[in-house]
């Protein structure tokens, strides 16, 4: 005989209620667990997705953040540029992992109605903001002057492969195709990539930069970093956050909704435990009286009841964790249906730390739920409870 065994046997005496209470806790834990997993998983996959996208912030000359894009498409010339001083200032901001200059322009040949979008890049840097890029062939060096990398669609249209040559009539220069990008599914497929200096040279814009692609170390600091960037006089900042603003808001409100539901589930679960313990103790007044009559002290009673609650809470916690492990995918598909923007990767990541948190939560709830009823039980006089039946 020990207290644990006694507590356990007491629980067995009220099998159905014990089982129901455990289910209540398990569901609360399941929900909590799913939330924690979702929290981690969602943040991780969104972060990774944004990382795959590469560029977190784009610094462009003041006055034309979005127009720049459309100008290029429609054959205009971007009127404003950044320069190396700006780049230097940007690079010095804390939290920036990489700031790489881009020179963006286009060659328009009227007679053929052909627009070739030219991207001047530093490949060794630019590939870091384009982690998804796969290249057939090889990247050129910064100082190459007759090397080019082409997007997949360009290669297809122009029937060009690695080792072929491409001629830009208006530039009057032949470039050797060093590499062809594998299909990205994005706009990169339609671009010609030249070494930065060469691109600047052919458009006679030496030292000019159209934009600076910025990758930051910690995406959560994107707000602070954009603020600092905006302090640089010449530049205007386009952050992914701005673009994703709507998405994040929508996700935010969906998450608030989920949070509320979870919170309610947790409160209900917790109240359920408290209620069960209260009812149990009311029913067990006599038994507690007997315990006291045969020598149990107040502390023994408290201990016994808390122990019983703990057993329920721990079993419920474990069950809840197992449930979330098994049911995570189910919830995932549900959440995917509800949430406005779901990254491709798993939203729910099973983490053992979460098991710890979930069980710790159920234990804390259990103890809190038990403490008041148990003190009330302990304060019963043995006689009072025995006398009741007379």
């Amino acid at each position, binding site marked *: 005989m020990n207290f644990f065994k006694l507590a356990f046997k007491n629980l067995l005496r009220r099998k159905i209620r014990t089982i129901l209470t455990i289910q209540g806790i398990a569901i609360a834990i399941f929900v909590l667990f799913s939330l924690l997993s979702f929290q981690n998983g969602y943040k991780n996959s969104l972060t990774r997705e944004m990382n795959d996208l590469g560029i977190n912030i784009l610094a462009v000359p003041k006055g034309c953040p979005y127009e720049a894009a459309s100008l290029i498409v429609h054959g205009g010339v971007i009127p404003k540029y950044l320069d190396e001083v700006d780049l230097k200032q940007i690079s010095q901001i804390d939290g920036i992992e990489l700031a790489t200059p881009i020179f963006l322009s286009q060659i328009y040949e009227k007679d053929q109605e052909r627009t070739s979008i030219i991207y001047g890049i530093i490949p060794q840097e630019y590939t870091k903001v384009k982690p998804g890029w796969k290249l057939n062939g090889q990247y050129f060096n910064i100082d190459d002057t007759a090397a080019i990398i082409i997007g997949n669609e360009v290669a297809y249209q122009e029937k060009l492969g690695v080792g072929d040559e491409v*001629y830009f009539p208006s530039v009057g220069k032949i470039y050797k195709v060093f590499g062809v990008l594998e299909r990205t599914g994005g706009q990169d497929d339609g671009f010609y990539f030249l070494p930065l200096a060469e691109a600047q040279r052919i458009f006679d814009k030496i030292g000019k930069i159209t934009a600076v692609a910025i990758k930051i170390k910690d995406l959560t600091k994107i707000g602070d970093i954009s603020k600092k960037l905006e302090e640089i006089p010449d530049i205007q900042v386009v952050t992914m956050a701005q673009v994703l603003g709507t998405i994040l808001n929508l996700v935010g409100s969906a998450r608030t909704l989920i949070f509320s539901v979870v919170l309610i589930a947790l409160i209900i679960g917790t109240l359920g435990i408290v209620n069960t313990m209260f009812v149990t103790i009311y029913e067990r007044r006599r038994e507690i009286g007997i315990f006291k009559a045969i020598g149990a002290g107040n502390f023994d009673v408290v201990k016994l009841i808390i122990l019983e609650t703990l057993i329920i809470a721990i079993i419920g916690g474990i069950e809840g964790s197992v449930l979330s492990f098994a049911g995570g995918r189910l919830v995932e598909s549900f959440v995917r249906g509800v949430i406005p923007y779901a990254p491709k990767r798993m939203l729910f990541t099973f983490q053992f730390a979460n098991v710890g948190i979930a069980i710790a939560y159920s234990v804390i709830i259990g103890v809190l739920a038990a403490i008041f009823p148990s003190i009330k039980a302990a304060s019963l006089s043995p006689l009072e409870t025995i006398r009741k039946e007379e």
Partner: protein
Amino acid sequence: MKIKYKLYIGSLLLAINFLFAGVCIWRFPDKDIQTLFSKATGYKTEVLTYSKPERVKIESLLGAKLDDDETQFNFYRIYKDTTKIGLVLTHSVKGQYGAIEVVVGLGSKFDSATKSNKVFIKNLLIQRDREVKSKDLRSSKFLDQFIGKTVKSKFDNITLVSGAEKSTQAIIFSVRKLLIVQKVLDQERVKQNK
């Protein structure tokens, strides 16, 4: 998906629509049609695909495989009012410095020897190229050599553009292919129907 699409736009990088199907399209019909058929009043586009035996036939006549993306051919039927007066076919071929897009105008006349209509090149032009010798390749001095050629013609008498021999060969190949495609997918089908 839409959101994701926006996301790409937002990453600044401009979304460009590539509306290229497998076929090479006729880019400047309004401008070209006058060059090719001075009497034309309009045109209709007909998309033709080939059957397996037709493909085999095309490839054996051509002596080369069709490109993977050449699953269909656009036949631009040229009209003068309601009368069909010709056909325009286009083809994109790998040149020396990128693709060369050839536009061929075909006409037909009755051949008393074979007692059938003979399809011949009425005119041709290059709508796009990246050639260093673009000017020479687009010159009438070069292109006029193709006028009158039929699917049975020999092309070895064509004077190559010096410095763009590879591209010249590519254009010849392109023209031959279009003539063969016309023969198999158009002329022979009409015959069979009769």
